[in-house]
């Protein structure tokens, strides 16, 4: 694995964090990256929350993988979230494997990597950990916070837990509670990892190996769910992979098989299997209304934050219906909320791709919020 984790920007969070599971973590590392410059009024900061397999490297080149940051389509100079204008921050979630405290780190009690001794974390734990970063950067109020998928879930939690920390919020393709279908797909991913004998109850790190086969299958499950049926049919159809006819074997005859295998095995180079277990668990446990005894409306009571919810028509993982439920709750709580459904065949992945209507909407909202935020501060 080509990792240069020591070069990553980190803060040490000294404030003890009491996790939802009851355990407390102390003095833990939180890795982050920033793009653009914070202006002197400190009113141009945008916080991005990453998704399940993302990390803090949203733009430019990821220094660890040497690939493009995961959101280069939306964040960078001249992009929808313009880093010439805005100061963009992203932190690696706790439980992750890009420098923030995760199951690969050394457990101070045993002097061994945590493995499955790592405490089970929640979306709220992730969000609380990241609040310390804003304090460290001296940002009292963000111009905007955004994130897609699990990033959107973190954002909803962030707005509910810290209602005064951001002027505006753009949750994208997410849900206020994980659906049975999504829990089932996550369980499939976890079972694939745990069925790999190399996984060894999470202790594979002792032999310095990765349960590659299980982790790759877990990633393949994810990849299927990020596309739409139509998008997949159009991209691959029944096309064969560099061959004229069937091989009458179990090699990757079809392009779609080859694509999945490629995605699966590329993933094991950059991600930790135990992190997938922990992060998917956090997503499954996420149910914002449960924190408010079943009333999602109460989760947003008294919100001053201006929301824009975005969903994608062909997303079957976090459907338009689930996103609309958030809009309905925000409306019922009297919050300032906008909503747009982007028509596209690109499925859940749409927020990471060149989807012009989406990027235009994102840009329009962020820019108009910046004007409003400046005006409000002037008054």
């Amino acid at each position, binding site marked *: 694995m080509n990792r240069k984790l020591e070069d990553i920007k980190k803060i040490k969070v000294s404030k003890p964090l009491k996790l939802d599971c009851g355990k407390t973590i102390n003095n833990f590392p939180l890795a982050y990256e920033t793009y653009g410059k914070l202006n002197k009024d400190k009113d141009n900061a945008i916080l991005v929350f990453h998704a399940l397999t993302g990390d803090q490297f949203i733009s430019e080149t990821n220094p660890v993988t040497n690939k493009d940051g995961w959101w280069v389509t939306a964040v960078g100079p001249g992009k929808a979230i313009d880093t010439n204008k805005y100061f963009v921050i992203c932190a690696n979630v706790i439980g992750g494997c890009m420098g923030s405290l995760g199951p690969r780190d050394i457990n101070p009690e045993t002097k061994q990597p945590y493995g499955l001794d790592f405490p089970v974390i929640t979306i709220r734990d992730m969000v609380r950990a990241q609040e310390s970063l804003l304090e460290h950067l001296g940002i009292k109020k963000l111009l905007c916070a955004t994130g897609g998928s699990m990033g959107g879930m973190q954002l909803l939690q962030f707005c509910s837990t810290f209602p005064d920390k951001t002027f505006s919020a753009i949750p994208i393709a997410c849900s206020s509670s994980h659906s049975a279908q999504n829990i089932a797909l996550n369980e499939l991913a976890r079972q694939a990892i745990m069925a790999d004998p190399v996984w060894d109850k999470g202790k594979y790190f002792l032999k310095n190996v990765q349960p590659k086969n299980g982790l790759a299958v877990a990633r393949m499950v994810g990849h299927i769910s990020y596309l739409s049926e139509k998008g997949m049919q159009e991209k691959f159809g029944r096309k064969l992979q560099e061959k004229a006819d069937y091989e009458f074997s179990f090699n990757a005859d079809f392009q779609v098989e080859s694509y999945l295998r490629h995605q699966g095995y590329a993933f094991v180079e950059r991600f930790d299997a135990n992190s997938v277990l922990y992060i998917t668990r956090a997503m499954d446990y996420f149910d914002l209304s449960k924190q408010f005894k079943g009333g999602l409306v109460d989760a947003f009571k008294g919100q001053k934050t201006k929301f824009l919810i975005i969903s994608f028509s062909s997303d079957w993982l976090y459907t338009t219906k689930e996103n*609309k439920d958030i809009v309905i709750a925000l*409306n019922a709580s009297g919050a300032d909320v*906008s909503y*747009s*459904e982007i028509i596209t065949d690109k499925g859940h992945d749409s927020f990471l791709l060149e989807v012009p*209507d989406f990027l235009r*909407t994102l840009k329009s*909202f962020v820019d108009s*919020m910046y004007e409003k935020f400046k005006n409000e501060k002037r008054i």
Partner: protein
Amino acid sequence: MKKEFKVIADLLPNNTRVLDVGCGDGSLMDLLREKKNIEVRGLELDQKNVQQCIHKGLPVIQGNAETELHQFPNQSFDYVILSQTLQAFYNPEKVLKDLLRVGRSVIISIPNFGYWKVRAKLLFFGEMPVTKTLPNTWYNTPNLHMCTIKDLFNFCDKKNINIKKVVGVNEDQTSLIKKSNLEIKNLFSKLGIFLIG
């Protein structure tokens, strides 16, 4: 029609909370926000229009008024506006009921099918009328339930819906419509604007 927006703006007090159903590109919301310091919200079906609103910094929800008004709580707005859309719904009566539930008062404007040119077209030529306010032909019109100012007036009476004010619009001319002048105004107004609830 700019005049329509001016009449609607004049009907609204400053500093109120208003929902514009079928808000289009947000022109009316923009006007109300700027001129009257009104807290506006929009509901709009078309994605391009929704983008326009967001670009102007106007809060807008993409959705269909016919099926999605239920998301707004009872009496959550001082006023709800429905501009020239009532006749395009499958079930205008149900929509109207929902509007009155969401808003303390409702402003509805309708293209008047009782306008004399519309009547004349049908009477003398035997064809479905095509005018400036009704620009579509019978086979591509979104209008399913055309009505006249008199029809809506009578409907409100029958359903015990309180009519607070009705304004007739003909180009730049506006006039108050009452029961006493209903017949004549129904003949000479291109547009009727009702404040009810």
